[in-house]
């Protein structure tokens, strides 16, 4: 049992984490001030000594404090980490669901019809490589609402992987299965839902998984731009406060939430997977 692979891997992970934190802790020890402070330094309250990357012990202490009260709200500049993450998740999920509602049906049509594929392909190829943040000024001008603009940016960045994967999955459904539908006189709608959708579902889910990953990457940058609320704004705000404890803590939280989003879609992917 003790020799089992997962156990040994977990053990190794813990050793690596301890090593990493140990090195980090040792590397950022506050240097003893040997000389007397200059007048300038005294005026600045010895700020240079404090401007350093905090050791992991401080970060963990801070994280414990934040996580024990995640939903406090003391005005626009001081909200709990739970509230900030909830804002970001709300924007990501709204933009993402809207994108899925549009990308999957269009991807279906594009995948089914070579004509539509060739007609839409140039647009997709041009629009796809545009950084979603490049849309932000246009979105702000047209929508005139920063909240909705952030959602629009998420929408525009999640749409492409889903659209392309859906089209690819639908176009590559095995001809035999289509023939099964044809010999059973299935209507176009039934063929779409009973044969093509389940056959293409794993590929579609792959697209959805890529999209949620990109959306979570983009929301941080988008919120740094639009400000107000959200985890991206929080990171930038704490940088302006020179509170590196909070910055490092929120970086870790972004990673954890991103992992959970990916895990939930991986779970969904398992449900629709099949072996030939």
């Amino acid at each position, binding site marked *: 049992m003790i020799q089992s692979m997962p156990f040994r891997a977990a053990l190794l992970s813990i050793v690596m984490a301890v090593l990493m934190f140990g090195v980090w802790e040792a590397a950022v020890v506050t240097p003893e001030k040997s000389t007397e402070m200059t007048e300038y330094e005294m005026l600045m309250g010895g700020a240079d000594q404090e401007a350093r990357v905090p050791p992991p012990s401080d970060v963990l202490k801070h994280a414990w404090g934040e996580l024990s009260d995640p939903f406090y709200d003391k005005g626009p500049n001081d909200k709990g980490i739970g509230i900030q993450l909830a804002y970001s998740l709300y924007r990501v999920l709204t933009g993402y669901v809207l994108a899925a509602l549009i990308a999957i049906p269009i991807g279906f049509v594009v995948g089914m019809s070579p004509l539509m594929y060739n007609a839409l392909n140039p647009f997709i190829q041009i629009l796809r490589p545009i950084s979603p943040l490049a849309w932000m000024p246009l979105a702000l001008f047209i929508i005139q609402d920063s909240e909705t603009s952030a959602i629009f940016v998420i929408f525009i960045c999640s749409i492409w992987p889903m659209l392309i994967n859906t089209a690819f999955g639908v176009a590559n459904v095995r001809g*035999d299965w289509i*023939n*099964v539908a*044809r*010999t059973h*006189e299935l209507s176009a709608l039934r063929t779409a839902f009973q044969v093509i959708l389940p056959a293409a579902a794993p590929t579609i889910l792959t697209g959805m998984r890529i999209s949620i990953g990109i959306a979570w990457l983009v929301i941080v940058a988008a919120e740094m731009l639009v400000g107000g609320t959200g985890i991206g704004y929080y990171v930038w705000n704490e940088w302006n406060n020179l509170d590196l404890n909070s910055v490092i803590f929120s970086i870790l939280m972004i990673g954890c939430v991103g992992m959970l989003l990916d895990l939930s879609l991986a779970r969904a992917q398992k449900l629709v997977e099949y*072996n030939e």
Partner: protein
Amino acid sequence: MSKAFLEVSGLAKVYATKEGNDFTVYEDVNFTLDKGEFVCIIGHSGCGKSTILNTLAGLDDPSGGAVIMNGKEVKGPSLERGVVFQNYSLLPWLSTLSNVEFGVKARWKDWSKSKVREHSTRFLNMVGLEHALNRKPSELSGGMRQRVSIARAFATQPELLLLDEPFGALDALTRGVIQEELVKIWSETHQTVFMITHDVDEAILLSDRIFLMSNGPNAAIAESVKVDIPRPRQRNTIFQQPGYYQLRNYLVNFLVNRSAEKPEDTSGKPKEVNPLSGLETSSAPDAAISEDSVQAQNNEHPLAVNQ
């Protein structure tokens, strides 16, 4: 005009090649099937057997000619013509039972859930799969998958069943077992079956008639050989039937030596042959084949369509 159940007339398949020439796979294919008949078609690769079968199914459009079933021209696929594909074509995300129910539900849309289930289970029992109802196709062996496919096709009770080399990918032992199951299920339902095979023994075991195709390009159904061996036939005893080897030799001889010849009859109708018609008098099988087959060209076979 004959009143056959299925009539194929002047069927042709022509592909345009890159050089702009026409490549004729087959042309002027004519034959008829009677209701309840089991017909196998044998020929070398490339002669267009599968294309003929797909045209009967309505999955492939002919370049010329027509297929008439029950007085109506075949245009597109239909539930009246069930197909068993060589690669099984089961839907891999559905269980064995759901795959059969898929066909049954498509056939009888107003059936209740329990009736669909009962009907599907009955046909899966017929092929001996009652223990594997909830398994996915990927968890089944090739032979079991093909059984599911056969159960699905028979369960929808089409008027014409088209089997495209259903046992081609199976090993000899599995093949034998499923052949017997096919005989059993067919003897219960007596559907009209049109089947492609490469196996002469399989064709003799199953068929009422065997179509022999000449080689492509410009292939044609050269002969329609009557299998004059009484039913019920058993795989382990059929080779003791009088005339079995005579018939087998006749078929093998055609495939090995004569399939490259162009049929001398240009009417497009396959020549009706019964290698066993003079059986009692013949002592030397090889000599008898050639003589008998000449005599048998216009025998009193009930399906003879020669004018």
